[in-house]
């Protein structure tokens, strides 16, 4: 069963084609890496899938809903965490959880259970009343991810979630991603770190608005005769014509 299906999805801004006829399918519970150099069209593609931007042409079904007509439904069934920090620094840990729980319409009972569960999993029980801006960055990112999936969405979109985080914390962050995936939440992640690309089930690489390659990391490495994903990425990104 696919949770994301796109067919020749295109977005143009005037004469500029930011996303050029991309077609792919993502299965339920899959960890899907969405790679590309800056300006390759990743963010625009992701915005269309989140229901924030209406495509120029092509088709896209996200979580069973059409991106043209049912963006409100899509928003209810996805989670989102951006490269910029997604929580409010001047709110306490539990206040942030309650806010997003409230926005996604969780019942009081479910919200209380979720809060306890989440704080327990993240080992943040002692920090319940701490203002988020005084937490270390790694903890913030983990908290932000957990809050992004507080409503058990079908898909969670992560836009460079581990920017500026040290390797150890990144590793821990990926453990959370695996847990979410085990709970059948599809993870759609963009990243600049090629070691993270190796953790994905499948990886797509965008160049100049088109999906140039899409497969499992091991197949990609064989196809492009590379030792690691960095090699694959370099040989593809070199073809890019347009800059940043």
């Amino acid at each position: 069963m696919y949770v994301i299906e796109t067919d020749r999805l295109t977005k143009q801004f005037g004469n500029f084609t930011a996303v050029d006829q991309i077609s792919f399918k993502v299965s339920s519970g899959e960890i899907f890496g969405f790679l590309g150099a800056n300006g390759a069209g990743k963010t625009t593609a992701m915005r269309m899938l989140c229901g924030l931007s209406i495509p120029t042409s092509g088709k896209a079904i996200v979580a069973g809903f059409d991106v043209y007509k049912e963006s409100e439904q899509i928003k209810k069934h996805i989670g989102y965490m951006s490269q910029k920090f997604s929580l409010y620094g001047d709110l306490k840990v539990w206040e942030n959880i309650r806010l997003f729980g409230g926005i996604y319409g969780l019942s009081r009972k479910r919200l209380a259970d979720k809060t306890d569960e989440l704080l327990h999993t993240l080992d943040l029980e002692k920090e319940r009343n701490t203002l988020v801006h005084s937490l270390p960055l790694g903890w913030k990112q983990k908290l932000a991810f957990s809050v992004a999936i507080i409503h058990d969405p079908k898909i969670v979109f992560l836009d460079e979630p581990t920017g500026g985080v040290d390797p150890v914390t990144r590793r821990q962050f990926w453990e959370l991603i695996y847990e979410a995936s085990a709970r059948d939440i599809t993870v759609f992640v963009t990243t600049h770190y090629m070691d993270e690309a190796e953790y994905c089930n499948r990886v797509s690489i965008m160049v100049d608005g088109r999906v140039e390659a899409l497969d499992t990391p091991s197949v990609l490495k064989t196809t492009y005769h590379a030792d690691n994903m960095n090699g694959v990425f370099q040989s593809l990104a070199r073809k890019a014509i347009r800059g940043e």
Partner: protein
Amino acid sequence: MKQFISFIRKEFYHIFRDVRTMIILLVIPIVLIILFGYAITTEIKSSPFAVLDYRRDDVTAKLIEQLQASEYFELYKIVDSYDEAETLFRQGKIRMLVSAPQPSKEGVIGIEVDATDPNEATALLQYATAIISTSDIVMRNPDIQIAQPGIMPTVNLLYNPQMKGAYNFVPGVMGLILMLICAMMTSVGIVREKELGTMEVLLVSPFKPVYIVLAKATPYLLLSVINIITILLLSRFLLGVPIVGSFTLLFSVSILYALVSLCLGLLISTIADTQQAAMLISGMALMLPVILLSGMVFPIENMPWILQLFANIVPAKWYIIAVKNIMIKGLPAEAILKESGILLFMALFLTVVSVKRFKIRLE
């Protein structure tokens, strides 16, 4: 509804946990009222004057006494020659000279004022003329006339008999503060979310953009209600400005004006990308016109026509007129139909424009 409440609660946390915001909300209104009520005043108090006395009889003595008795004037010196008086004028020691001629000559009492500040000069002239012409000793001496206007007008000051500056400034300060809180704070609040990146997260959530904006504006609307009440209490009991007209009416027109300000704030938030830019735009494009072009400090009637024309699009102008009509003159609702109509039109127009722009920004 539940989403809405969670969101408004969050906004209040932002407000209460930010010292800068709290200062703007709580301290600035009080400071402005006190500043305009006491420090920045156009009232005349204890202006120094000199007397050039050729008459040297009880008439002059009586006049000096009566001028002194008013709180407007204070005798600086009795001079012996016109040259001496002129020197004092030049040195800025005196603002006014009263000359009493010898009874044998034409019995004209002369008043001369330093007109460097024309507003002050006019006021001094009026006060002095009024005091001298109504003085019983002058009335009993038909040979004495005042060198001032040939026809002596009867002065009757309507609505503000003591000519208190606060009557003019309180409505102005209300216009300023509501604009400050509703427009500046709302625009900065929305732009901050854009800057931090949390706006994206909110837009991806099922919470509709319209509600994001409404939820942002609601706390500021509530706080401005508190501020309206604070200002009215301060002006009533501290500055002694009465509320002659209907309180409900005054309150309603204030809310209408607050809504216009909120819409302006929203519009600014769609233009500005950083909090500093939002602050600067609201400062330059909103605060300055409120202070300079609303009639709060400078009378609009005295401006060149192009500025008068421009003043018409400053919402504060209409609000201040309406507040004065209700609060000071005690007029009924019919008297502010035009002003409220214009404010209502502005609110609707700005809502349409900013909602449109807000949508474009989302694309």
